[in-house]
């Protein structure tokens, strides 16, 4: 059943309202800027698409257009931060943190300045633009950098909260956003704390713990509901902060269930599933199945077609849960 403590939306399974996570970021950025004058925003020629428009209109003196120059975007922001500003930088995730990865490594992470890197259009759900614009490796790129915090919000409301939290945190942060409109699951009352995973679905004696991140959390909840009808009890944990990982919650849920499934719109290599496997191999070794993209690039199509084609749909999560259950030794 839905965890009442999570204070999720009432219509989460019926006809949920939909909004892209980038939309929540845009709102959060203006709210953060209202509260802190040090916040500036830099964009590489994608102001509307990355939802920086409202900020740019309200705070023109604090908005910087960089043009199609993502390497400059990152290193400029390093300079702004070294001068006492809190810069948010946006582009598509394939370009930032993709194209400018070394600038982020040297001038932001190693240099240890509080730049907030916001990569939109992550995942195959970008749709028609095709593989060049569908970031599937950005979590991996960012989570291997020391000092970097990595957040992948599950919906627009959580993206808004993540933006506010990132603004207050004194260090580099990566926020992963998506293009497509996706279900609103969380509400203003849903707890959000960076580094603290949220249990959204719980069972009395779960057989499998599902750890999901990003908008696919909704598919994980739909899978939990379908499995409940087959009397297969699971828990669903929204791991919005991939780094630092909430070790306590993840180990607790993994131990209680004895088997886990990770769900992400990202390469299996280096993403959330990898992070969880690294943790559990040391702390609580249990069978794990990975729902994610299997060493492939994306392609053009509708978001729905692509989610199904790459094995990220509700049925795939259900199948992974059943498979991992059979692998349990006791």
């Amino acid at each position: 059943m839905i965890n009442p403590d999570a204070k999720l939306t009432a219509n989460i399974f019926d006809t949920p309202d939909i909004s892209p996570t980038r939309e929540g970021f845009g709102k959060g950025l203006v709210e953060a800027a209202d509260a802190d004058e040090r916040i500036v925003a830099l964009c590489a020629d994608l102001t509307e698409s990355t939802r920086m428009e409202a900020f740019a209109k309200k705070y023109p003196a604090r908005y910087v257009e960089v043009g199609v120059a993502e390497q400059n975007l990152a290193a400029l922001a390093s300079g702004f931060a070294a001068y006492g500003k809190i810069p948010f930088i946006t582009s598509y995730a394939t370009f930032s943190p993709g194209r400018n990865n070394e600038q982020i490594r040297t001038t932001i992470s190693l240099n240890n300045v509080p730049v907030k890197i916001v990569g939109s259009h992550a995942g195959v759900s970008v749709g028609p633009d095709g593989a060049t614009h569908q970031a599937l490796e950005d979590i991996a790129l960012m989570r291997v950098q020391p000092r970097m915090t990595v957040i992948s919000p599950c919906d627009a409301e959580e993206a808004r909260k993540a933006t506010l939290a990132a603004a207050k945190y004194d260090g580099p942060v990566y926020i992963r956003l998506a293009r497509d409109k996706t279900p609103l699951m969380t509400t203003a009352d849903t707890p959000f704390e960076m580094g603290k995973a949220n249990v959204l679905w719980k069972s009395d004696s779960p057989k499998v713990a599902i750890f999901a991140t990003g908008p696919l959390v909704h598919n994980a909840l739909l899978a939990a509901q379908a499995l409940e009808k087959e009397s297969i009890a699971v828990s669903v944990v929204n791991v919005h902060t991939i780094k630092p990982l909430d070790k306590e919650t993840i180990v607790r849920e993994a131990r209680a269930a004895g088997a886990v499934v990770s769900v992400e719109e990202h390469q299996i290599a280096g993403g959330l599933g990898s992070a969880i496997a690294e943790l559990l191999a040391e702390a609580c070794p249990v069978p794990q199945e990975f729902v994610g993209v299997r060493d492939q690039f994306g392609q053009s199509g509708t978001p729905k077609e692509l989610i199904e084609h790459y094995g990220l749909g509700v049925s795939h999560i259900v199948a992974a849960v059943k498979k991992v259950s059979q692998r349990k030794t006791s």
Partner: protein
Amino acid sequence: MDALSDAEVKLLETKALAIRQTIIEMLVAAGSGHTAGPLGMADIFAALYFRVLRHDPKNPDWPERDRLILSNGHIAPVLYAVMAHAGYFPVEECLTLRKFGSRLQGHPERERLPGLETTSGPLGSGLSQAAGMAYASRIPVRETSFSNEARNSSSRDVRIYCVMSDGEHDCGNLWEAAMFAGANKLSNLTGIVDRNNIQIDGYTESIMPLEPFREKYESFGWHVLEVDGHNIPQFIQACGEAAAIYEKPTVIIAHTIPGKGIREIERDYRWHGKPPSKDEAAAFLNELRTMQGKITSEHQ
């Protein structure tokens, strides 16, 4: 900037000589590192730290300070040497260069050593950071700001200097920054290019020609000055002119001799990335201390 008296020029030249000696001493102690670039930039760094920059070695975080971004981090020995001689840390600490636990990393790391403005080494990104600082310094901040840091960052007369190598102008990132600085008329930004014509694989004009170099910057919206990088008064005058140009960023193309001060090293690109041996260092130090044989007794 006021004209320099002969005594002031002499003092700066003496500082440059001391910096060159420290560079040789630290490189031979380290057993690795870059020799030609740091020696070639000793005069300019002496001028910057003992005349041009507004800074306070005892208060390296002073918000009103001018910022010096070293983009080509591999010439760190000259930066460390001049910082030590300016009083940021003891000159003896220079001998820890590149050693385990040292604050003087092979390439500069801001977090480790107070007074460093950034972490650098990978080429082509320093001008972006300098442009970011120059832009940030002119964003108006309300007096009601609750943050002292933010209020301090509103001072408008802070100047940002960015030292670059000529070879790093091969990098696309650098020209992205040059275009940005020109477009935004970042007049409190001064670029300083060490035009010594060498890079690791050979001479710049054979590896990837930079000429016409001056015209490239001019077409990106910069004011361009060219100086003899070993003529200290000329360089200081150029910095003064750069500060007076208010509608454009300025770049000072400083023509330097790589390895300047030691005849065996001068103009030889093979000295870009290697340190002197112990024997070589003894001879080089003798050459510096006797002012290339002009005097017979070494002065320390």
